């Protein structure tokens, strides 16, 4: 992850009530530096406000915005700040303010400053976007709990990279184990190579 170029990644939650993407995303964020986490009002109402005790790092700045326009403005301000470890923006639905120009601006600003930017789309459709990587993340049945077979174990995800610049798209099943991401079932050798980059 360290060697990866910072850019704008777009991440579609498979379902607005599926919180799985958060674990997938947080494992790729450096907890040493602060995270700017922006949620628009609808995202908070529909899928909840972030809850610091469940997050790997308490070093974060949370911004609640009225609408997508303010959220995109805040994201752009944040992306220009190189001292952040990541900017995460959650938008609900398909707001009008979120067009190709807006995403392209974010991508360029992110690449210039080196601050990774994650645009999280809850209940949105994959329209035209300037994002360099576009993911669709769904929760998968968790791993077997070693002590209690009936309890949920370590989280797992179905991650689909459906558009990426410079890398072919692919689909992986990932799990979180002992502070690392592991490929639990790869769909092919090429995909395995891709997935190894994700081990944090």
């Amino acid at each position, binding site marked *: 992850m360290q060697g990866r170029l910072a850019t704008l990644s777009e991440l579609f939650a498979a379902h607005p009530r599926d919180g799985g993407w958060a674990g997938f995303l947080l494992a790729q964020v450096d*907890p040493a530096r602060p995270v700017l986490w922006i949620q628009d009002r609808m995202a908070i109402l529909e899928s909840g*406000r972030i809850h610091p005790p469940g997050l790997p790092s308490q070093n974060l700045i*949370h911004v609640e915005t009225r609408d997508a326009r303010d959220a995109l403005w805040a994201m752009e*301000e944040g992306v220009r700040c190189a001292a952040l470890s990541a900017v995460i923006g959650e938008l609900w639905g398909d707001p009008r303010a979120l067009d190709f120009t807006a995403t392209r601006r974010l991508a360029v600003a992110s690449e210039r400053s080196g601050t990774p930017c994650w645009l999280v789309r809850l209940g949105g459709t994959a329209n035209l976007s300037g994002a360099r990587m576009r993911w669709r993340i769904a929760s998968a049945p968790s791993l077997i709990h070693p002590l209690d077979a009936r309890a*949920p174990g370590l989280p797992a995800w179905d991650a689909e990279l459906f558009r990426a610049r410079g890398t072919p798209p692919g689909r992986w099943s990932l799990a979180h184990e002992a502070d690392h991401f592991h490929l639990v079932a790869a769909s092919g050798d090429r995909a395995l190579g891709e997935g190894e980059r994700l081990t944090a």
Partner: protein
Amino acid sequence: MPHLAIERWAKASDSPPDAPVVLTVEGTHGLIIHAVTQAAAERGARPGARLTDARALDPTLVAEAADPAGDAALVERLAQWAGRWSPLVEVDGGGLRLDVTGVAHLFGGEAAMVADMQMRFAALGLTARIAIAPTTTAAWALARYKGDIPALPVAALRLDPDTVRTLERLGLKTIGALMAMPRLALARRFRGADNVVDALDRMLGRKDEPLTAAPNDPPPRAALRLEEPATHSEAAAQPLERLIPRLVRQLERKRLGARRLTLTGFRVDGSVAQAGVATAIASREPQHLARLLADKAAALNPEFGFDAFALEADWCESLGAAQESLVEEPSGERDIARLIDRLSVKLGPDRVLRPQAYESHLPERASGWVSAIISSSTPMGRGTIPRRGNGGEVKNAAASYPSTMLRMAPLPSPGWGGTRPQRLLDRPEAIDVIYASPEGVPRRFVWRRAVHDIARVEGPERIAPEWWRSPSSARLRDYYRVEDGTGRRYWIYREGVIGDGRGGLPNWFMHGLFG
């Protein structure tokens, strides 16, 4: 301002200027005249007289109700406006008191300053009697009575009417006569609250009369007066270019950095407009301050036009001389503080938050939020933050649990929480749950009209109500971590157990989402 009430009335009404109008207030025995126009005064009406008596002299008098509250509000507004002459203005009865020590030379001397004040009050249509004196009592007296101090009546000493009457009965009608009396005799005869000797000493400067609210170290302040009132919409934005460098020079001299700035625009009609911004770390860098203030300043409405501005850093923190480091090392903390400043200015300080943990077991109480602009440098809860009514208010995001109720706790150490969800609904949502037995684990639930079959479940984690905070009817919660068939994981809880005597069947709620 001896004629404030009647002049304010005359401005608001459209009656001819020579109408014999009196303003009245309710007295013990009927209406009492409060203020009179020039024409009414010529017909024998005097403030303090009864309306019926005045009507007996001239039945054509027109009586109107006075508005003392409105007059007082006008005086308050004028006091703010008078901040253009001196930073220290007090409302004193129906008048204003300005501390002009070391100020007059800015306006070309005391006489020129008085002329300026006369002219500006006259432009507002108000008669102002202005006096400058070394003591406040003397200034008060000279503004109200004519003559030298020894020739002034004893009423000028601001004693209560009974004492004044006693003195006059004794033949001591002027201050000069009083000064000629032996102090010992005066002191023996007038004791207690109405100490004539004290009043005399205050008048003559033998005794200090401290002004209240005199800041011993006034905050850095830059002022600018315009030749012509600026009425265009960007009127307040342009002076910033000149005000900010002046303020920054003062801050540099005192080795301070501004945490909060207030820009005040003085309008020609005697009102003021203010805009304030706060910063997350002390700063005195002109570009940064200008960027923060620009939008706020542009939003100030000039109405009839601004003719003076003041920029004040009313909350400062010490800041060393070196602002920029010599080595080219990116200082992340400052970049983040600036980011917080910009976000807070645009979105509001209560929307840009940092986590704050509290000592509580209830999840929604344990994790609160505080405004990032406050928490980034000053620890909360020490009372070190000066608060003011019109800006920089800090609100705890968990509004239903004011921070005074809860003690703060250190933030949990980093690492995967595991047992706590990544997202919490602001308000737990009721869900329908199917379970094998009321105390048993849930099997299936309906949330937002979607059915979720529970594949795996872990729990319960029991969180008892906080009896020292909650009402006695609060029920305990049994939290379960559940996973449905597709792998989505939720945090749900059952409120209460059967037979706890605090209600009927327990209710189920959805509270959080796991990632």
